[in-house]
């Protein structure tokens, strides 16, 4: 499987993501530069975490208008998988590839900590190898993960089974205490209508090696590999 990790000015999880895709999961992974215009050679595009353009104005806003985003859109239109992690998710929202927007966390602070996520849909290339209701332990690291969407949009997400991850407790239950940022409906990740574009706030690339404290992130990569093989 060939993957590209897009580097925007200010991306800072690009190297971590490339490391996991290439050295841990064994994909054929390369960087793509924000000013590039083609992603024709790859199967998977990952928009990594970080602070593209310093998170100035609105997080992800300026990156969403970069030249590479036309290629990302084309890639998505072709039905091929796109994964946005953290800032990558925010960029997908700003680019209109996913619905809704991000607000500042309800604590108004950056939060870096381990969270538990429940897999709400296995019908995406990022979760196909997981089981429904499976609880994954993955870290978050963001100041703007407070997902919002209007009531109609939320109804669509529900009706179309497009909520991919929710914040839950270790035992898989939802409660205000396990929502780290105030996101509506405890949403941690969603997909587009075609189901090939997934955005998630937590960082699977930080939880793919045992010595870093957990390997649950592998579920995402294994799903992508399985989806590509299928």
């Amino acid at each position, binding site marked *: 499987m060939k993957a590209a990790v897009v580097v925007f*000015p200010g991306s800072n999880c690009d190297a*971590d993501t490339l490391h996991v895709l290439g050295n841990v999961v064994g994909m054929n992974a390369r960087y793509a530069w924000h000013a590039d215009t083609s992603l024709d050679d790859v199967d998977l595009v990952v928009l990594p975490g970080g602070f593209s353009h310093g998170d100035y104005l609105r997080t992800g806003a300026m990156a969403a208008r970069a030249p590479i985003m036309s290629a990302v859109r084309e890639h998505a239109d072709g039905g091929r998988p796109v994964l946005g992690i953290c800032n990558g998710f925010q960029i997908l929202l700003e680019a209109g590839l996913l619905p809704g927007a991000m607000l500042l966390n309800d604590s108004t602070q950056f939060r*870096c900590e381990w969270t538990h996520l429940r897999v709400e849909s296995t019908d995406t290339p990022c979760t196909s190898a997981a089981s429904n209701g499976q609880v994954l332990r993955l870290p978050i690291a963001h100041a703007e993960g407070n997902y919002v969407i209007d009531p109609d949009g939320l109804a669509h997400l529900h009706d179309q089974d497009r909520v991919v991850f929710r914040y839950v407790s270790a035992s898989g239950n939802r409660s205000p205490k396990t929502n780290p940022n105030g996101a509506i409906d405890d949403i941690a990740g969603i997909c587009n209508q075609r189901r090939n574009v997934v955005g998630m706030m937590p960082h699977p690339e*930080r939880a793919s090696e045992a*010595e870093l*404290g957990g390997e649950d992130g592998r579920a995402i990569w294994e799903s992508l590999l399985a989806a590509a093989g299928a």
Partner: protein
Amino acid sequence: MTATSAHQPPSDETLREVALTRDEYHFAADLLDRPPNPVELGIIGGMWSEHCGYKHSRPLLSRLPSEGPQVLIGPGEENAGAVDIGHGLAIVMKVESHNHPSAVEPFQGAATGVGGILRDIFTMGARPIALLDSLRFGPLDDRRGRYLANGIVGGIAWYGNCMGVPTVGGEVYVSGAYRGNPLVNAMCVGLIEHSQLTSAAASGVGNELILVGADTGRDGIHGATFASVDDPEASHRGVVQVGNPFMEKLLLEACLEVLQTTDAVLGLQDLGATGLTSSSVESAGRGGTGVALHLEHVARRASGMTPYEVMLSESQERMLVVAARGRAAEVQEVFTKWGLHSDVIGEVTESGLLEVIDNGQPAATLPIGMLTDAPTYTYPVERPAYLDEVGPIHLDALPEPEDPTDAFLQLLASPNISSRRPIYRQYDHMVGANTVIAPGGDAAVLRIKDTPLGVAIATDGNGRTTYLDPFVGGAAAIAESARNVSCTGARPLAFTNCLNFGSPEQPAAYYQLSRAIDGMAAAARALETPVISGNVSLYNESGGEAIWPTPVVGMLGVLDELDRRCGAGFTAEGDEIAVLGAGRPRLDGSEYLSVAHGRVSGCPEINLVDEVAVQRLVRELIVARLLSSAHDCSDGGLATALAESAFAGGLGVRAPDLPILGRLDETLFGESQSRIVVSYPPLAAAAVAAAAATLSVPIRPVGKVGGDRLCIGPIDVPLAQAEPVWSQGLELALAGHAPPG
């Protein structure tokens, strides 16, 4: 304005502005054989400030041991020191203060402190892999105290998180001694191959100087001199700068890329205190050359800036690059790729002079040697009288706690004991995908990818101990930081430090500085950990009161095999718990004495022979894989250390028969150096005891891991009750709410 025109002797006010004494002015004029013009005066003042010239501290600093086979670059040679960690790799590290700017604008002051220390690391060609922050705040029941504390933490988080460098450790202490003058010390650690280490020397006549990054503005003029006079609140408000971590991230990537992809870069130097002045002068000093700067080529953010302002601006996020003659364009291309502006602003000369030229007119002409060699001062070291007043405590006058459990919970809630998580969860401590032991343990541990190695890093420094006995405080800062590193199994290799003290012109502060350095030197020799870099922050006072003398030490250790490491949390029900080490717990200078009795007094002690032995023992036990946990027993004493290991592991303590040595409160809450709380499976007990005997380290059984209560002598409380008290203490204090219980 030219260097040759005649001048009036400067007014007192002018001299104050450039932080020169009249004697220094005359000394400078004698060296020059003419009076310096105003631009030159500003340059001399900046370079001779404490911040750049170390005029009061240099003679004392030379007492610190700085040699060892592991040292690749020692203190003062480059922007940061470098240590060999094996496998052809080096760690580059340094700590720096941003105390005064943070007192005025906490968020931006602290943020730009992080920005500055990061640049010191990547100018060496190293990729920053970790940040640590050592913080001292005034009382949090005071609104301004909370404003400063929250602003400072927010600023550190903002800058470090945006840069993508994990903040993996640090310290927080709260005391009235820091009211009005908080301490913000930021440390950065970088990784590099030996062969890639880059110098900040401007060598090779005709080579070109490129200024890259932010445009130069009026901000920060006199930051260095501001850091060298007391009372941050008083004036100098205009020096506050707004940081741009985004631009710094671009600078970082561009600098590392340009070093990788061309050999046209001969030197890199960041612009810190006194901006273009010290960066160009220090580069030339290292190269044994001169530099000519053409100020009209410096891109400005404000119109109408004078040569004085351009030379002394401390605008953030700028770097000076020395490029091989004729190859500037190649270098500039990489910066352009990263969206950064750059200009060729000067060249290396053989004159040995700093020549500042503005539109063809000389604006300043000064010998480099005179600027890099600030006059130094020494004073007699006289023991101040206060030390007699804070001397021995009289235990008879102190009642023992009526309810030990209550006293314990009160201690756990103290902002100096309770969990630091409300702070470090605001820091991205995982980015980089190397953080193996995250903040919350004794030292942070990072893996070094593609090697079996790990590095352990901790900062420590106890102002209260140093106030009570500067020698012991200095020694303890080294000992405790090394002990924290040893508790992970890592071998302490070298340290960096920041000396936060009051005015050296005050005899008490000078005594504290001198004795603390002696203590640090003694401990560093004993532990064989040389200093490789550091920073001095003097004149930390407000309203005429000096802070507690606060040496902060950042210690680096190496794990030859990352797999043989240890954490602070208990891991298994039924494990035995013991205390290693000869230290005898005493209430002197303890947090308990302060929380329960409102006293800061006593005579803290340290025995360096015991210290070396206990650290060696714990490392040997970890490497032999005998231990389940190891945790330094420090602030809050044994009961606190046991609780911390219990909270971290989610397992209780069964130690109802804890042997009481001396008074109950001494046993439970007394502090001492050189003690480590360990746990191990019963099967390992004989081997642990044998190893301790071989190294003559006392080992005292405490009890067992297990259950869901903390039973420590007479203390008996459910974990589920004690844990929230500990985990919310600092959080509530920062939010302005009274502690629970």
